[in-house]
């Protein structure tokens, strides 16, 4: 089971982190339940979560979107999906998960997180920790699109 109240803080955190760190406005689209492991994008990071619930959050970017966001984040232009751009996906995942956990803690849901793992390539897959449904939320920015996926099992 996954309560939607756990998902909203992750969406708010994604918008807040991108705005604060990279000056990027991100607009969420319609959430949907995702049944397969295939990433809708070119590079991803996933972070495990424990505590009041057990699960994971993944952040999936299209190549153009993350190159532009990384350029904003670091103040230098990136034209290829190199190690530095991939590293930025990991740090953004870390920050978004942390900000979401802070928001959830205000409602009494205390969660801990691990260290993000970065995966990439056309047609790569994302293995969430929980077996249950994964909620995917697409975002649009002026730089392109990205996706937040959240999957939880446990008592929350």
């Amino acid at each position, binding site marked *: 089971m996954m309560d939607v109240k756990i998902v909203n803080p992750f969406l708010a955190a994604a918008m807040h982190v991108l705005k604060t*760190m990279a000056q990027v406005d991100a607009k969420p689209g319609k959430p949907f339940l995702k049944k397969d492991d295939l990433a809708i994008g070119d590079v991803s990071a996933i972070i495990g979560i424990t505590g009041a619930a057990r699960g994971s959050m993944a952040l999936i970017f299209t190549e153009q979107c993350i190159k532009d966001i990384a350029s904003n*984040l*670091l103040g230098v232009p990136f034209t290829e999906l190199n190690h*530095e751009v991939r590293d*930025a996906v990991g740090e953004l995942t*870390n920050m978004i*998960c*942390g*900000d979401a956990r802070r928001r959830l803690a205000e409602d009494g849901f205390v969660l801990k*997180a691990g260290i993000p793992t970065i995966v990439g390539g056309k047609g790569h897959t994302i293995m969430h920790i929980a077996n249950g449904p994964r909620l995917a939320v697409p975002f649009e920015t002026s730089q392109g699109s990205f996706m937040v996926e959240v999957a939880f099992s446990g008592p929350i």
Partner: protein
Amino acid sequence: MVVDDFSTMRRIVRKILKDLQFQEIIEAENGVEALRLLESNKVDLIVSDWNMPTMTGLELLKRVRADERFKGLPFLMVTAEAQKENIIEAIQAKVSNYVVKPFSPAVFTEKLAKIIPQGQ
């Protein structure tokens, strides 16, 4: 010294420190590497992440504070660990100040100014 397992954050912090006229900035990927660099470099400030493999920023802070040579060293924790209990734990371990990710350069500078005397 900037300590973070992600090069992205090390670069962001390095850029802010450069803009603040810090001259020589060294980097470590985790607490173990930071402790090794402390032995061989004159370090005036540690800016460290919390959540890192091998040795966390909190453990690094405790090791630094337990060492007579470094116990007064300004230590700024820059972390996504923003829950109240994290901050209390860091304060108990004698962190100098705490910056929650995400942050703007202005917030970082303000927090740093409280632990570094002006003109240093």
